[in-house]
Structures are given as structure tokens and as C-alpha cells.
């Protein structure tokens, strides 16, 4: 279903077309990319991520928090939460950095495995993400400024946050009682 907001955005980009004469080639390409994205967005229920981007995010999230004896990131619909955050919480610059990172990941995967990320095996996905995680850890340990702003830092943080605040995360994984009706300061763990 197309949301009203997407429709408005799509109309806005169409309305820009009569001004072709005043925009440069790069901007035209950008408008074209945007129009293509918007077309894709209209096909899906997502608001910030294209279907291809959504596929990367949901698979990466599942590799970070996999289903075990308890639900994983996919069960908890973490990618939907990340889509909402990108659409309504982050600024455009954060959103673009995140999306650029997803495309870089696809490029990296193409070079290594000849496939886009979503099509590679779970093992290959895990290995690629572990490399990104090691790089992130090194940046954090060397107190590199902006380490937390890196797109993978965003992805990992949002995955963890989205999972542990979801119903399956709270009820099945953490087994928290939100409405215990009592306080026990010395319960068994």
C-alpha cells in the first residue's frame, strides 16, 4: 500500500521535472535515481528503504541477532523498526550515509562472492559482517571521532535496540514481567 506521504513525495519529484533546464546532469541522474527508488517504494510497505535495501537490512539484522531457541531479529520485525527510524527519526544525512553503506556492502560482496549480499550464504553474510564489526571495534577502541555514526554502527545499534524492545525480545528472550504486581529484590536468576 502506498502511504499518503510517499504519494506526496512522488508528486514532489514529478513536479520538479519542468525545471530540467536549470539543473545539471548530476542532479538529473539523482532525480532519476530518486524516481526509480520512489517507484520501488510504492511497491513495498517500507518508507525509507527500497525492497533491495530492506532485504540487506533484514538479513544483516538476523545475522546479528539470529533465531536460536528463541526468536531472532526477523521474527521481531527489526527491519521494519529500522525503516521507521530512517524515515522519521534520523536526518536525511544519516539516512543517506546508512543507505550508501548498504550499497557499499553489496559492492564488497560482489567483489568477494560475485553476488549481492542478500543472495550470498548465511555463512558469507556472517563473515562479511564480522569484518565490519572488527573494523568498528578498532575505530571505537582508537576513539576515532564519529565511530558511532558509521552506518554499520547504526545498523548494529538499531538491530539490538529494535530486538530487545520488541514483544518477542521482551517476552520470550528477556522474559521480563512488565506488570509484575510486586517487587522482589532478591529473586532467583
Amino acid at each position, binding site marked *: 500500500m502506498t502511504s499518503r506521504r510517499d504519494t506526496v513525495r512522488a508528486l514532489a519529484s514529478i513536479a520538479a521535472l519542468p525545471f530540467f533546464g536549470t539543473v545539471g546532469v548530476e542532479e538529473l541522474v539523482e532525480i532519476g535515481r530518486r524516481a526509480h527508488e520512489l517507484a520501488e517504494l510504492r511497491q513495498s510497505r517500507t518508507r525509507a528503504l527500497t525492497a533491495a535495501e530492506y532485504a540487506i537490512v533484514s538479513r544483516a539484522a538476523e545475522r546479528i541477532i539470529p533465531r536460536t531457541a528463541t526468536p531472532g531479529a526477523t521474527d521481531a520485525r527489526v527491519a521494519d523498526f529500522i525503516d521507521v527510524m530512517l524515515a522519521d527519526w534520523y536526518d536525511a544525512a544519516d539516512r543517506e550515509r546508512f543507505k550508501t553503506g548498504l550499497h557499499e556492502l553489496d559492492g564488497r560482496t560482489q567483489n568477494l562472492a560475485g553476488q549481492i549480499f542478500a543472495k550470498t550464504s548465511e555463512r558469507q553474510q556472517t563473515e562479511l559482517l564480522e569484518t565490519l564489526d572488527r573494523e568498528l571495534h578498532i575505530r571505537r577502541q582508537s576513539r576515532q571521532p564519529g565511530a558511532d555514526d558509521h552506518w554499520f554502527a547504526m545498523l548494529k545499534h538499531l538491530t539490538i535496540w529494535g530486538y530487545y524492545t520488541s514483544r518477542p525480545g521482551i517476552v520470550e*528472550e528477556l522474559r521480563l514481567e512488565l506488570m509484575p504486581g510486586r517487587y522482589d529484590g532478591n529473586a532467583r*536468576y
Partner: protein
Amino acid sequence: MGMRGIERDYDAIVVGSGITGGWAAKELCERGLRTLVLEAGRDIDPQRDYTEHVPPWDMPFRGLGNRRAIEARQKVQRRSVSFDELSHVFWTDDVDNPYSTPADKPFDWFRARQVGGKSITWGRQVYRWSDLDFEANLRDGIGVDWPIRYADIAPWYDHVERFIGVSGEAHALPHLPDSVFQAPMEMNVVEAAVRDRLRGHFDSARKMIIGRVAVITQPLQGRAPCHYCGPCQRGCVTRSYFSSVNATLPAARATGRLTLRPHSIAHTVVYDAKSGRASSVRIIDARTRTEHEYRARVVFLCASALESVRILLNSSSHTFPNGLANGSGALGLGVMDHIKWGGASGVIPGWEDRQTIGNRPNGILVPRFRNLDRNARNSAFIRGYQFQGGAGRIGWQGRTREPGLGAEFKKRLTTLGPWVMSLAGFGETLARDENRARLHETLRDAWGIPTLHIDVAWSPNELAIHRDMTGSAAEILEAVGAREIVRRTQPSVPGNTNHEMGGARMGRDKRTSVLNSWNQAHEVPNLFVTDGACMASSACQNPSLTYMALTARAANHAVDGLSRREL
């Protein structure tokens, strides 16, 4: 009837429906006065407006809040510790309600405009003052002497506590008198161990007790005991914690003498020079932007400390060119808050097989232990501070930046980490005339009402208190065997503790204070100010209990005065 025509007469007008306005309304109504409560914000219906039982997964931003909207409209309010994705509706819009500060002196002015005011989001910790506090200004030669002592307020503490319900434990500490208590909440296993270990140290001067909190543990007048759901700042449908919505306003309404008018922004108390009395209150209706005027025999300002000061400053007249009841020039002077955050936390090894169940809306207290002897200071500063805090196990929130992914990583995040004990100080602020609020020359709010310029900074005494908080918290944690102790050294921004007070201080001398010993304006006998504005010093205890006791005391005095035709 003209635009400024008097619409209706009441016996009493109360400006504000928060923690003190609710008490003024209850006492005045119960003593027989037809009372109009003017509230600047909207009405609150607990069934509709309280959201404490909404689970995280039903929040679009999972507790992270609507960042863009909040940065656009609530840049100041968001800095409150109780501001969250759902509770943000209980704070004002900073764009509609501006104020200013000097560029180098930030001040967080947290404000609420709805029925219940900040009593919906308050911290609920309640501690009596003692004569150590009421005598402090006289002893130190700071500000003005309080015109009351503990004996004057003690019966009113009793009166208030019996109604609001306070859970806590009696300890017979002379400087922190016991309240009328319901059963205390429970310390958790590590807090209890820390309390016991502390007994052998510091000559037993540093004690740890369970917090005293206006959350009931036993039924009280139709209110249910706490069920430990946790996010009190979003409301409480079981009315377990005290707020004016939960308790005082219903009591006032039950008398049949209460009129509550929401959306009523009071801006002026009209002074009648002939009678020497306050005659009416002018408001702007927040929605229709029309002016209205209401007359009464007695006026209570309970709009919150700085809003009440603002109303008085905006109420100048021929007799009082610098603000109503401001012959002394003291109006706006001596604004205070508590300096906070000095403290420390550390890991307490052990008890890995224990956890807590339920979200206790309370913590522990280390009562003040500095400068208790009136004749001997034991520190580099005057006055003192107390610690609040607690122990808990580290959860996933504290570990999102750890390396790893996959099943092992998930297991590590889910597993509770070690127990951490934290202590955070709340320090007394001196009443200094340099710390003041005045009317801004040009800045106005969305309704055209002149707003405040607030000029407040910590003095060397507060900063010395803050340093000592950090040091002594670390000493306590070392003494009880904590490891990996982290010291907190950054002082809070003034106002951030949300204990702003002063600006219309009580005093013995009408040349140096605004209010007398009954919270009554020295120069306008039927005008009372009973919110935090009245405070002549700040002590280090959370102040709301004292505001409530002073309000109940003042309201009963006002009714007595009316019946003797003295007002």
C-alpha cells in the same frame, strides 16, 4: 459586560493546579470556600491521557522519542530526566513558551501546562526539613532568616502525609524527621548488603536507608497500592502515586465548591489601591485568545516558582510599579535549584544468581552527613547534600557497543551483567540575590505575555559541595567493596534538577522579603504565594513535601483570616 467585565465572583482563586494548586484547592474547598482554579493548560483524563502501561513495542520509536518533533518544539523540556517518548506531552512547547538566559549561564526551565502540572511527572521523593535547615540562613548570615521553624510546619507535614501517603521507614534522625509512614518499599539484596557493610565505616555517620516516596504501599482512600509497573512519569491509572489529578483535585471536587477552568493563562493579579487588596485575576483563554477577569476575596499563586514570580512582575500598578507586592525589591531575587550529579558508581561483586522482579519507583537515600553539628563544620563548604541511588544489574542497554554478533553475542546481551551500585548527590544551593529572574524587555510568549530573563549560576559553595559529593560517594563505594568505580564530576545545569525555587521569599522583614510567615504578601494581605517561589533557602531535601505543607498551612490561615474579616 465589556471585554474586561467581571464574569463571576468566587471566594478564592487558585492560579495553577499542580502539586501546590491542588492542595490550596482542596483545603479552601473543604473549609467552605467557592474556589476557582485557573490552569493554563488542558484538562487531563487519566483513562485517556495516562500511558504508563503502553509496552515499548507499541511505541513507534521504542522509547527513543519523536526526535525531530521534539528538537523542533521541546529542546529545553527534553533535558528533564522524566521526559520520554510518551511523557513528553506533560511538558510545555518551548516555542510557544520562550524565556532567555545570559549566553554563558544556561538554565533549564522545566514547565508543565495541564491539569496536574508537574505533579504528574515529579520524582515523588518526600523528605521533611528540620531546624538545621530553617535556622541555616540566620546561622550563616545568608539571604534572610526563615520566619518559621520546624514546630510551625510539623503538624502540616503530618496533615499532608496522612493524605498523600508516604512509604518509608522511621529512623529518628534529628536532621531528617520521620514522616507519617506507610510500609516501606524493599531494598534489593545488594542494597541491603551495602547498607550493612556501611555500618562499620565513617563512624556510622553515613547511613543508607530506603527512599521515602509518595507512592502508596497500602490502600488509601480509594487509591490502590503500587503494582510496580515502573514508568510513573506517564501517569498512574491506579492512582498509587500522589498527584493533584490523583488525589487533591478529586477531594476538592467532592465538596461541590470547585470550579476548574483549563486553558486559562493567568497573567495579571489586579490590585485595588483603595482597599489595598488584590481584587481579581486576568487571564487569556489559550484557545480563543479572549481576555477574562475573575474576582475573589483571596488569591493563591501556585503557578510554579518562576511562573508565579512572572505573574507578580507582570502585575505592576501605580502603587507597585516594579511588580505586585514588590515594595521590597526582593521579587525575583534568590532563585535556587539543587546542584546534582556529583557521585559515583561501582560494581559490587557477587549475587550473580539473584535478580529483581518488578520496577520499584524508588531508590535508596544516604541522608546528609556534612555539617550536622551547628557549631562545627566538617567540610570546606557550608550546608550539605544527600545521595539518592540504588543497585541493579547491568542489562543489554549498557552493552550495545560491545563487539560481536550471532548466537553467542545474543546470549551475552540477554544475560544480566554484574550488580552496579550508584550514588547521585543533591546539594543545597545558597539563596543569593545575584541569582534572579526579571521580565525580559521584549520577549513575549505566544499569547503576547512578557516572559522571563533568568540569570542563575552556581557559586563556589555549590561547586565545592559538588566536588565533595563525588569524593565521598567514591569513598562509600570503596568502603563497601565496590570495584571499577566511576566518578561523576560534571555538575548539572541550574534548573535541571527541576527543584527551582525562590524569587518571592518568605521573611520576617517586609523590607527584604515578599511574603510573611504565612506565605502572605507583606503588602497585600489577601494574596498568598505558596509554591516554590516562597523559599528562603533550599536545604538539600526534595522540596515538594515542604511546598505542600506550607500551602495547606497558608490556606487554613487564609480561611481563618477571612472568617475573622482580617483579609
